[in-house]
C-alpha cells in the first residue's frame, strides 16, 4: 500500500489539484453543490497518502505532521468546510513535492561527490585481466586503467603514463601529468593515456573513501543553532496541539482548533538550518575544502585572526637554488657538481636541494670522488677531494674552521640573507670559493589570498615560523602581514595562540597539519593543507584543504560566511513565520487554507534561500585568474 501511494503520489496530487480548479470554475458559475462534490473528491484523493504516512508513523509510536494534517482535514470535512479541507490537502502534497525537488538540489554537490566513487576495477590475476568489484581488490595487486576510466584504488604507477583529472580529491580540474612511480588516487579519472598501477590502499583506506566518510559525517553533524531549533520544535508542536485542544474545548470552535493543528507543523524551523549547512558544506567539499560540520562553519565564519605557518603554507615548501656566486675560475656547473658530490652524506633539506639542482642540470657524470665525507650537525658538510679539504655550510662552520671571510664576501652574504635567502659558503682549504643561495618561493596565490581574507573580515594576519628571522621577514614584507615571529619552537607557537585567545580573538591556524597538529587543535579553527592530505591532518584539523593552494582557504572562509548568513536568515524566516501564524490565528486573520499556504511558502523560502550557496564556484575562478597575475616575482 505504502509503495502504491508513493508510486502514484504525483498523479494523486495533480488530480486533486485539477479537481480543485474544476470546483472553482463551477463555483464561479454558481453551482455550489457541484463545487462541494469536487472539493470532497479532491480531499479524498489527496488524503490517502497522508493518512498512510500518519499511520505508518503511529505504528512506530511516532507523532507525525501527517497525523496533524489528517485530523485537521477530517475536522474540516466534519464542519463542512470542504474548500479549506481540499486546499489544505492539496497544499500539503504540493508543498512536499516542491520541497523534495528543491531539497534534492541543495544536496546535489554532496551527492555528485558520492557518485564519483568508482565501482569496478580491472585487475591482473593469473596472467588474465578480470573485472572485479572495487571491494575485492587487494593491496599489491596490479590494476589497469584505460582512458576515460576511473582509478579504483590508491596506488603507484608501474607502467604507462596519463593525464589525470584529480578533482574528486583536490577539487582542481586541471589535468595532472603522471608517469612511472607517481602516486594516483582512487576517484580520479584518466583523461588520456593508459596506466597500470600497484594498489597501495584499497577499500575504505583510500584517500577518497576517507574524504567521503568525512563529508558524510560533516553533513549530519548538528550545529548548536540546529540543536536549539530542533529542541524548540520538539516543544512547539505538542504545545500547539495542546493549545488547539484547549481552544476547541473552551470555545467549541472546531474551525479555530483545527487551524491551530495546521500551523503546529514546525516545517521551516527544522529544515532551515540543515539545508544551509548541507549546501555550504557540500559545495565546499566539491571544491576541495572539507569543513567538518555545521559548528565549524559557524566558527570559521567568525574568525578575525589568521595565523599562518610559513614553510609549505605560505611558501611552496620546496626550497630551490636561486643564486650561485663564484670567487674562483670554476663554472656554475662545476661548483654545483662538486657541492652535490660533497652533500651526498647530508640528510639536511638544504643539502638535498643542492643535489636536486645538480640532478636537474644533469650533472651526475661530473660528480667527483669524495673521501672522508662527513655531515656536521647544524653546520654543514666536509670532505676531501684529491689533496684538498672542502667545507660547505653556514657561517658558524666557516668561523669554527677559522676561514677568513673578506668584507666583499661578507657584504654579499648579508645582502643575500636579508633578501630571505639561505646562503651557504663553499670553502676550499682556507679560501672561500663560492656561495650557494637557497630559497623557498612564496606560493603564487599567497598575495591574493591575504588580500581576500582581509577584504572579507580577517583583521589580523600573522606568520609564526621556526625558520630564520630574515627569511620570515622577507615573506612577511612581500605579503604585507601584520606581524611575524621567527625562530619559534612549537610550544611558543601554542603560547602565542593562547595569548590571542585570552584577548578574545577568534583564531584560525593554517598549517601543513603534521608538525602543527597541537596548534591546529588549540585554535578555534585548525586548517590543514596539503595535497591529498595526511591522515593525522584529516583527523585533527577542523578544515582540510585538499590541495596546497591558498585560494582554497579563502574559498572556505567565504563559503562559511555565506553559509552562516543564510543559516541566520533561514532561522529568522522560520521564527517570524511561527510568530506571525500564531498571532494571525489568535486574532482571526488566518484560517486553515491561508495558514497552510504561509507555512508551505516559508518552507520553500528557506530552501530556495539555501540554494544561493550553490553556484559560488564560477566567482572564485575569476579570482584565481587574478591571483596568477599578481604572483610575486622571486
Amino acid at each position, binding site marked *: 500500500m505504502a509503495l502504491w501511494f508513493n508510486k502514484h503520489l504525483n498523479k494523486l496530487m495533480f488530480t486533486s489539484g485539477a479537481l480543485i480548479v474544476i470546483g472553482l470554475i463551477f463555483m464561479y458559475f454558481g453551482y455550489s453543490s457541484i463545487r462541494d462534490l469536487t472539493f470532497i473528491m479532491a480531499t479524498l484523493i489527496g488524503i490517502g497518502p497522508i493518512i498512510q504516512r500518519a499511520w505508518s508513523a503511529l505504528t512506530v509510536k511516532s507523532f507525525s505532521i501527517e497525523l496533524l494534517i489528517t485530523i485537521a482535514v477530517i475536522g474540516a470535512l466534519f464542519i463542512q468546510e470542504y474548500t479549506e479541507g481540499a486546499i489544505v490537502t492539496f497544499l500539503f502534497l504540493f508543498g512536499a513535492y516542491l520541497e*523534495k525537488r528543491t531539497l534534492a538540489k541543495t544536496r546535489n554537490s554532496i551527492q555528485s561527490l558520492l557518485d564519483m566513487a568508482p565501482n569496478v576495477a580491472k585487475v591482473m590475476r593469473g596472467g588474465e585481466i578480470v573485472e572485479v568489484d572495487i571491494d575485492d581488490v587487494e593491496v599489491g595487486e596490479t590494476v589497469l586503467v584505460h582512458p576515460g576510466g576511473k582509478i579504483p584504488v590508491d596506488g603507484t604507477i608501474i607502467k604507462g603514463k596519463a593525464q589525470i583529472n584529480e578533482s574528486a580529491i583536490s577539487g582542481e580540474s586541471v589535468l595532472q601529468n603522471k608517469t612511472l612511480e607517481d602516486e594516483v588516487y582512487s576517484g580520479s579519472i584518466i583523461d588520456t593515456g593508459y596506466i597500470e598501477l600497484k594498489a597501495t590502499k584499497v577499500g575504505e583506506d583510500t584517500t577518497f573513501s576517507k574524504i567521503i566518510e568525512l563529508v558524510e559525517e560533516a553533513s549530519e553533524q548538528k550545529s548548536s543553532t540546529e540543536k536549539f531549533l530542533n529542541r524548540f520544535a520538539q516543544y512547539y508542536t505538542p504545545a500547539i496541539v495542546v493549545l488547539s485542544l484547549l481552544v476547541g474545548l473552551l470555545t467549541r470552535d472546531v474551525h479555530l482548533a483545527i487551524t491551530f493543528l495546521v500551523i503546529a507543523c514546525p516545517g521551516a524551523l527544522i529544515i532551515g538550518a540543515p539545508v544551509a549547512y548541507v549546501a555550504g558544506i557540500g559545495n565546499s567539499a566539491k571544491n576541495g575544502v572539507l569543513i567538518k560540520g555545521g559548528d565549524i562553519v559557524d566558527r570559521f565564519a567568525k574568525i578575525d585572526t589568521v595565523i599562518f605557518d610559513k614553510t609549505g603554507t605560505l611558501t611552496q615548501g620546496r626550497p630551490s637554488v636561486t643564486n650561485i656566486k663564484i670567487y674562483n675560475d670554476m663554472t656554475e656547473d662545476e661548483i654545483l657538481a662538486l657541492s652535490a658530490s660533497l652533500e651526498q652524506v647530508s640528510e639536511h633539506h638544504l643539502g638535498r636541494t643542492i643535489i636536486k639542482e645538480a640532478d636537474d642540470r644533469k650533472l651526475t657524470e661530473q660528480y667527483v670522488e669524495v673521501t672522508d665525507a662527513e655531515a656536521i650537525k647544524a653546520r654543514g658538510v666536509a670532505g676531501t677531494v684529491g689533496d684538498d679539504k672542502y667545507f660547505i655550510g653556514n657561517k658558524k662552520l666557516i668561523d669554527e674552521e677559522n676561514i677568513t671571510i673578506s668584507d666583499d664576501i661578507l657584504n654579499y652574504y648579508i645582502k643575500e640573507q636579508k633578501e630571505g635567502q639561505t646562503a651557504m659558503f663553499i670553502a676550499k682549504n682556507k679560501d672561500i670559493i663560492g656561495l650557494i643561495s637557497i630559497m623557498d618561493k612564496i606560493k603564487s596565490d599567497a598575495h591574493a589570498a591575504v588580500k581576500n581574507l582581509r577584504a572579507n573580515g580577517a583583521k589580523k594576519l600573522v606568520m609564526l615560523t621556526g625558520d630564520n628571522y630574515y627569511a620570515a621577514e622577507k615573506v612577511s614584507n612581500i605579503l604585507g602581514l601584520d606581524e611575524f615571529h621567527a625562530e619559534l619552537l612549537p610550544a611558543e607557537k601554542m603560547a602565542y595562540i593562547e595569548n590571542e585567545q585570552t584577548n578574545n580573538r577568534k583564531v584560525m591556524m593554517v598549517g601543513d597539519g603534521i608538525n602543527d597538529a597541537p596548534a591546529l587543535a588549540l585554535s578555534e579553527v585548525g586548517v590543514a593543507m596539503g595535497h591529498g592530505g595526511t591522515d593525522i591532518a584529516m583527523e585533527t584539523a577542523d578544515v582540510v584543504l585538499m590541495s596546497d593552494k591558498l585560494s582554497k582557504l579563502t574559498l572556505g572562509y567565504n563559503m562559511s560566511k555565506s553559509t552562516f548568513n543564510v543559516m541566520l536568515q533561514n532561522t529568522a524566516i522560520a521564527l517570524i513565520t511561527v510568530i506571525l501564524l500564531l498571532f494571525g490565528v489568535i486574532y482571526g486573520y488566518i484560517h486553515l487554507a491561508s495558514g497552510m499556504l504561509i507555512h508551505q511558502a516559508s518552507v520553500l523560502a528557506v530552501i530556495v534561500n539555501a540554494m544561493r550557496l550553490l553556484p559560488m564556484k564560477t566567482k572564485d575562478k575569476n579570482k584565481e585568474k587574478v591571483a596568477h597575475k599578481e604572483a610575486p616575482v622571486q
Partner: protein
Amino acid sequence: MKTNLRTEDLTCPSCIKKIETGISKKDGVSKVDVKFNLNKVTVEHDDRVTGEDIKSTIEQLGYPVKSVKTSS
C-alpha cells in the same frame, strides 16, 4: 554485517525517527543510522535479517529504496 541502503530523498526530519525505530525493532539489528542529508541508511545486524528484509521494512514505512548493499 553491515547494510547500506540508499533511499529516495528524505524530506522531513521526522522520517529519521520513523525509519530508525522501525528497523531497530527487528530481531538481529544492533545499530541503525539514518543520514538525512545523504538519503542513506546504515544498519548493523547479524544473519537473522537480510538486506532485503530491511529494504521491505523501509518501503513499508513509505520510503522507496534505490539500492541495497550488504557487506560482512
